[in-house]
Structure formats: C-alpha cells, structure tokens
C-alpha cells in the first residue's frame, strides 16, 4: 500500500518490454499519464466543493455565533460573547444541554446492549437469519421523519396502542399522556432514537463478528470455553473497535438529531424536551436570531471533536497494522 503505483513491480515474470504493444513505445506521454497532475485534477473539484460548502459554512457557523446576525437582513456585526452570555444563564438552554446528554448516553447504552445481543444471536447461526436481518434493518432504512410520524400516532394521547395494551394486560391503572409529561416525553423520544439506531449498530457489530478469525474461536472451544466465556473473553474484546465505530456513529447521529424531537414534541411540554438542535432551530430559524441559534448549535462541537479524534486514532492504528 505504501508503494507509489509507479514503483510497484508488475505481476508476471515477463520483462515489461516484451509485453509492450507494437508502436506503444513511441506513443507520446501526455497529460493522461502524468499521475500526480491527474490525481490533483481528479481530486481538486471535490476538495473545492467540500471546502466551499462544508468548510466555509462551518467557519461561518462559528463566526455567526459571535454576531448579531438576523434572518431578515444580510449584514451583521460582531458582538463578542453577547450570544453566549445570553444563553449560558438561560434555564431553557440548560435543559436542552442536559436533555441532549441524557438522550445520547441512555439511548446509546440501550443501543449497544440491543445490538450486541441481536448480533451475537444472529451470528450463532439462526434459521431465517437473513429474513430477521431484513426486518431488523427496516427502522434504519425508513426516512426518520416518516418514522417519527408513526411514533407520534403510536403515542397518541387518546388512541395510543401502548396504553391499550398495558391496560389490557392489567399493567396500567391510570393513563399515560406521553407528550403531556416531561419524563414520559423524554422516554418516548429516547425510545424512538433507540429504535432507529440499534439496527444500524447491529449490522456493524455483525460485520465485526464475522471478521473474527474462525480459528481463534475454534481454539477457544478446544480449550473448553463455553458460550459465555467465549463471548466475554474472546468475542467482545475483539469486537471493541467495531463497537466503538458503531457508538461513534450513534453518538453523532443521536446528539445532533433535530427531526425526532421536532416532530414528536417540538420541545414541549413547556419547553421541557428541547435538545440543542431543536433549541438552535427555534432561536435561529423560527425566532430569526441567527447569532444565538449558532451559539446554541456550537455546543455540539465538543462532541464532534471527540468523535473525530477517536475516529482518527482508530484509522491511524489500522493504518500501521495494515
């Protein structure tokens, strides 16, 4: 992999000169052969596009958070830390920050448990494994806004099938107003996030499981390790890097998600279920205060920096190992 393509010996033992087509040796070398130039030409447009439409907006997001930009006009001036001083003592902001943290940690913990469980069971050779995997993947494939809508209906205050079933089973004496109570509303939001993310994590962990060399497992069996010992001492440690990837994606997608909360509760009841994303949307887009919205959204940055750092570490480690 480290060898530049030009220096790598060609396969086959025939010296190159023998294989040259008649006339080919006299063909002029053109741009089409200048690998370095060609590489730059092919990569350049993409780099420019990404810098222009992801890099610059990213910097703009930071600049805007220090500005008094409003949705209506295009001019703005820098106002230093004013936006941050405005949101830092704001109880709604505290709530959103806490909710984001709670949502991310709880849902990812649940996702890890569900995903590892399903992956280990599926990997153990289950009849109908492909069919089950197809069904398990549905929540991840469906557009999140449409899925959220289905959950709004499932948690409906009058027609909730969950309430009916709990009542019918004799487990519920009172009534659950899912979106009328902050704790229940957060439970609903977390449920939807778990539902959406665990299939994806399952597939990643499953890929990791099947990448574990079979002889390692067989060796463990020969040494007399049972299911649990094999799981805890062989499979799970080897799964760690893959599980980390799954969690990183999960953390990124969950902590920054706007659609689930927006469609389920829109921050209600009494602004108790806002997350950073919905609060930023409310302040920045609906409220028109782009500066403050940007400041709120910026608090997601530390999460992403950590995620990126871990990703880079993983990538570097495998680069050395490859």
């Amino acid at each position, binding site marked *: 992999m480290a060898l530049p393509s030009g220096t790598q010996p060609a396969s086959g033992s025939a010296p190159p000169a023998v294989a040259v087509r008649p006339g*080919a040796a006299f063909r002029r070398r053109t741009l089409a052969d200048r690998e370095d130039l060609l590489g730059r030409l092919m990569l350049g447009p993409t780099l420019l596009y990404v810098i222009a439409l992801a890099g610059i907006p990213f910097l703009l997001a930071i600049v805007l958070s220090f500005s008094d930009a409003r949705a209506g006009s295009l001019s703005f001036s820098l106002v230093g830390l004013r936006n941050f001083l405005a949101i830092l003592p704001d109880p709604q902001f505290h709530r959103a920050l806490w909710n984001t943290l709670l949502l991310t940690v709880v849902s990812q913990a649940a996702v890890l448990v569900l995903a590892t469980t399903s992956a280990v069971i599926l990997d153990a050779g289950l009849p109908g494994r492909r069919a089950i995997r197809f069904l398990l993947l549905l929540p991840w494939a469906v557009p999140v806004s449409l899925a959220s809508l289905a959950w709004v209906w499932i948690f409906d205050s009058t027609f909730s099938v969950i309430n009916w079933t709990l009542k019918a089973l004799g487990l519920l004496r009172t009534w659950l107003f899912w979106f009328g109570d902050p704790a229940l509303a957060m439970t609903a939001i977390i449920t939807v996030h778990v539902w959406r993310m665990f299939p994806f994590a399952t597939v*990643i962990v499953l890929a990791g499981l099947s990448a574990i060399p079979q002889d390692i497992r067989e060796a463990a069996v020969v040494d007399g390790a049972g299911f649990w010992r094999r799981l805890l001492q062989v499979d799970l440690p080897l799964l760690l890097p893959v599980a980390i990837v799954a969690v990183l994606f999960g953390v990124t997608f969950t902590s920054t998600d706007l*659609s689930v909360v927006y469609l389920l509760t829109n921050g209600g009841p009494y602004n108790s279920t806002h997350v950073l994303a919905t609060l930023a949307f409310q302040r920045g887009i609906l409220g028109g205060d782009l500066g403050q919205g940007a400041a709120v959204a910026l608090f997601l940055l530390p999460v992403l920096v950590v995620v990126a750092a871990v990703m880079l570490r993983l990538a570097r480690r495998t680069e050395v*190992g490859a």
Partner: protein
Amino acid sequence: MRMRRARRVVVRAAQYAAIALITLFAVFPFYWMFLTALKQNRDLYVGATNLHHVPWVFNVPPTLEHVQLLFQRTAYLVWVRNTVFVGAVVVAITLVFAAPAGYALARLVGRWGERLGIALFLTYLVPPTLLFIPFARIVSVLHLQNSLWSLVVIYPTFTVPFCTWLLMGFFRSIPRDLEEQAMIDGYSRLAVIRKVVMPLAVSGLLTVVIFAFTLVMQEFVYALTFISSVQKMTLSLGVPVALVRGDVFYWGSLMAAALITSIPIAIVYNLFIDRFVAGLTHGALKG
C-alpha cells in the same frame, strides 16, 4: 451430559425469545402503519380506554379510502416528483465529483490519499444541525429560498464526502495488477480508468447511486429550513409537515404515505447494506 444438553436447549430458547422480542420492537411501527393505512375510520378512532375493541387487528373490513385520498386529494405525487428530481440531480452531481476523487485517493495521490480520505469522511460527520444556520445565510445570498435548487446545492455536501469514501474503498479493491498490465500494454492512465477500472467498478458506482439517493430521501432538516411552500416540498418534509390540516390529523393517509414511501427504500437499502457497512468500517475492521 444430559444436564449440559438441557442447558443448551434453555440457552437456545432464551436466544430465540430475545431475538423475537427485538425483531417485534423493530417491526411493530411498520405493522402499525399498515393497519392504520387500511382501517376504516370507525375502526381507527376508538379510544384506547375501550378494552373491548382490540386495536391490533381489523375489526371491520379494511378499506383503500385513505390511500385514494392520499393520491387524489393531497400533494403526495408532487412531493414524489420533487424528491425524484432533487435525488436525480444530486446523484449526478455526486457521481461527477466523487468518482474521480475516489479513484485519485485510492491510486494517484499516494500516502496523502489516506489522510485526505479520512478528512473528507469527517466532513460527513459535521451535522446539518451545525450547518443549517450558516446555510440559511448562504441560501438567502444565492436567492434560493423556497427553491428545490437550494437542496440541490446543499445535499451534495454530505453525499459527496460519503460517496467519495465508499468509492475509494471500491477502487482499492480492484487488483492493481490489472491496471498495471494494461499500462504495460500501452494504455495511458486515463485510458486504464476508462476501459479497465470503470467496467469493474460498476457495482460500486451503483451502490453509490443508491445511497446518495436514499440519503436525499431521508433528509429532513435542510428541507425544513429552506422549503416553505407545500408545492416545493420533498417527501420526507411534506408528509409529516403538510399532510396535517390545521389540527386534524388524517392518520390513515399519513400512515399510508409513510408506508408507501418507506417500503421501496427499505428493500433497496437491504440489498446494499453490506457494501455500505464495509465502506463505513473498513478502517476499524482491517486491523
């Protein structure tokens, strides 16, 4: 010996029970969409306090009236058209940018390739939530508010990095020897790409087409931010935002829309998920 067998049976049974429950959890909302879409209103709107009315099954014969309403009296088909339009243009843009870049990263730029590839991939992780506010400014500077073109400009910011990364993996998996043999035979690098690499990369390119398209179909945040009129909406925005009239939810039609939209994506997605995961994890799994 018998103890051990008994224990194995118990473990197996527990495993089946666990996977059955988990699968039910995953599938249940789709079953619910299905029931809701086809139930008559008098079967649908029965308060959940009524324990004699079992909501899990059809209590009166199913009906297609909600589906008809969806297709005939709502903007659903307009949203389908908008989505296909945005999806097609974004897929084209994505291929034009990502295919050459993926190949360059895989073969032409040497050791830099790996790092640039990772850097590109990381931009995929920068979320809409952080970018929609600056984009709101950019879109208004470009005068693209409430236009499908705003989505066409912005969606490639996540499809291009992601697809470049996927394609880099595909191009790497093509045996280098084939390309070198062709160059020894007198082909230029560009000709090698056209005549040797592209035919071999067809399945990779197809995967990218599918994923770019599904990413577009799933996007909600930018559409919500930039599109305000019902006629310009895409499916993922129009169905949850504009099918609700005032405070009245037409749940039958809503769930029909959700189900009809989801099924094709789900099937296609399932066919390609292995490649997708391979692309995402090829860093972590290699080691």
